[in-house]
């Protein structure tokens, strides 16, 4: 293929080799088409607008070998790891090295099923989404049947087997049929600092479906690329939140489209970034149908030499009259070297809409710190209280006491670990 001519970096040449080997083993026209789309740009650089603040071609020196399927001993190791950890109520599904492992997963409640098999998404133009589709060795879809109301959250645990440098690809579908209600928690755990993770979650909400989704990135991957692709039919509602507290380079990108009338979306996130870590959240929210509501509320706490990125683009297409959109991103910098790049954007083609956005970057308010200290509260405790309050306000939008509690506990743990490093 001539497209490979565009590949300049070592990592891109490795990816092309990995894809060719896979095609040799099990050829697939769908994957070949996806890899051709990736090949058009290769790993994005600053010149690709959506990747302006995260130059992957520069950041990724080489692509790690694709992680082989877990061995029986890998599965046993994962089982004992799972037994040691705290878990949320509700059923738990386990993906080990990107593969659904039924043997490690719970029985699902009535109305929920896991189907292994291929699916594809159209309409998302992003090289890493294409790369994920081209190289994911396995894929599965969790589906919730019509009108099923699933009370407890379904947890999807992403674990990594093996050691050494590896690339892990996963591709998970979440499909809610009409009128179904369910909550999902995706936990990314156990990646060590040589892991490059490429995860995609594709959510489809049929008419009147209601989904809550929480993603937690708490491990230490060298690279965490997570794409969420969401489509909402009429009157569907989605509340999605992402907590990032680990990973050297983390990119969460959300491509969301409201194709049906009266859909409602609340997106939120909290990025906790310290050391020399980088965390990028990039959103593209498209209103394609009338009377949609979208809220985006993102916060970041950036310490040391860390770099945060928030890019949010809300597109209101011509047909999407009476759209109500509001986007907000706020960051607190804790060190003079910490950086936050904010780029909120609106693209409005309809004439009868209410849309706004705001972005702020600041430091802790010294008046608030002094007020707390004047009551005997130590400087470090005062700062921790204010940061927990700042982060907590974004978490509270998850609107589920159980999940809020779990997320706040992670926020407190991160604040404690940062305070211990540098009192």
């Amino acid at each position, binding site marked *: 293929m001539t497209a490979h001519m565009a590949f300049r970096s070592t990592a891109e040449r490795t990816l092309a080799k990995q894809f060719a080997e896979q095609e040799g083993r099990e050829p697939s026209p769908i994957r070949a088409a996806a890899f051709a789309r990736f090949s058009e740009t290769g790993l994005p650089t600053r010149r690709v607008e959506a990747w302006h603040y995260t130059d992957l071609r520069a950041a990724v020196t080489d692509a790690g070998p694709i992680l082989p399927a877990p061995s029986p001993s890998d599965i046993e190791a994962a089982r004992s790891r799972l037994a040691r950890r705290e878990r949320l109520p509700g059923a738990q599904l386990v993906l080990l090295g990107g593969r659904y492992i039924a043997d490690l997963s719970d029985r699902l409640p009535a109305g929920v099923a896991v189907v292994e098999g291929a699916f594809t998404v159209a309409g998302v133009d992003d090289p890493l989404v294409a790369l994920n589709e081209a190289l994911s060795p396995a894929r599965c879809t969790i589906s919730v049947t019509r009108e099923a109301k699933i009370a407890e959250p379904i947890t999807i645990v992403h674990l990594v087997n093996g050691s050494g440098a590896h690339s892990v690809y996963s591709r998970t579908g979440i499909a809610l049929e009409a009128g179904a209600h369910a909550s999902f928690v995706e936990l990314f755990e156990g990646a060590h600092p040589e892991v490059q993770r490429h995860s995609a979650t594709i959510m489809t909400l049929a008419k009147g479906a209601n989904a809550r989704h929480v993603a937690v990135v708490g491990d230490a991957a060298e690279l965490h690329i997570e794409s969420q692709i969401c489509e909402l039919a009429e009157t569907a509602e989605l509340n999605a939140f992402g907590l990032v507290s680990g990973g050297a380079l983390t990119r969460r990108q959300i491509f969301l489209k409201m194709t049906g009338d009266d859909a409602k979306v609340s997106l939120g996130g909290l990025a906790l970034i310290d050391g020399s870590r980088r965390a990028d959240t990039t959103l593209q929210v498209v209103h394609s149908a009338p009377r949609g509501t979208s809220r985006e509320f993102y916060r970041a706490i950036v310490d040391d030499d860390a770099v945060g990125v928030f890019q949010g683009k809300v597109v209101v297409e011509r047909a999407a009259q009476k759209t109500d959109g509001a986007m907000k991103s706020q960051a607190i910098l804790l060190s003079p070297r910490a950086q936050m790049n904010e780029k909120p954007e609106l693209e409005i083609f309809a004439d009868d809409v209410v849309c706004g956005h705001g972005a702020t970057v600041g430091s802790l308010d010294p008046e608030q710190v002094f*007020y707390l200290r004047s009551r005997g509260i130590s400087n470090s*405790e005062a700062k921790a209280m204010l940061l927990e*309050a700042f982060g907590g306000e974004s978490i509270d939008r998850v609107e589920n006491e159980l999940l809020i509690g779990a997320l706040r506990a992670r926020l407190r743990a991160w604040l404690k670990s940062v305070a211990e490093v540098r009192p």
Partner: protein
Amino acid sequence: MLEIKNLSASIQDKPILDGLSLCVHAGEVAAIMGPNGSGKSTLAYVIAGKPDYEVKSGEIFLDGENLLELEPNERALKGVFLAFQYPTEIPGVGAMTFLKAALNAQRRARGESDLTTPDFMRRVREAAHALKVDQEMLRRPLNVGFSGGEKKRFEVLQMALLAPRVGVLDETDSGLDIDALRIVAAGVNALRDANRAFLVITHYQRLLDHIKPDVVHVMSKGRIVATGGPELALELERNGYRDYAEEVV
């Protein structure tokens, strides 16, 4: 008990306090009156240790210990309490969470264990009842959405719970209607005892009708220019600060 010696302080290189000396004895309520810009609030902030102010010279002793060598939170733990003129709003921090953190910081400094939740709740309820602070207010984030009067009552509630050695009240009467003023004054009066002192900073005589001072100091251009009994406040109410402002050259 509280002894301020030759204190000079500035903010952003602008001198505000100019060799101020002042003594407040245990059991005493000392009023500090003075025209706008005389440095009253600066004095309050410097005692509490606000970082914006630079102390050029002087000392502030509380029970023989120089407060200027201590961090703001350490001063609070030694018994300094500043009732703010404009209490800071802190979204996301619950009023109760804050009270508990403050009380436990004080207890830990004394080597005591943290309060149990029922014990904490009982103390807050009692203090809140006396100051007509309702439970709904305590469920809100700290000072957020509090009216001016509610903020001042909440300041005095904190003071009652923390039981300081010296309470510095910075224009606690500002923004209060007469009913709120009575409640706040009664709260302060209930805390008066032989081991505690108050520094009541005010621009108007009105507050001193409700919190009767033992001593009145007049401040002008960053220092104390006159000291007298309660009658001095009445004289200021009649004649204004003109006489005292002119004395300092």
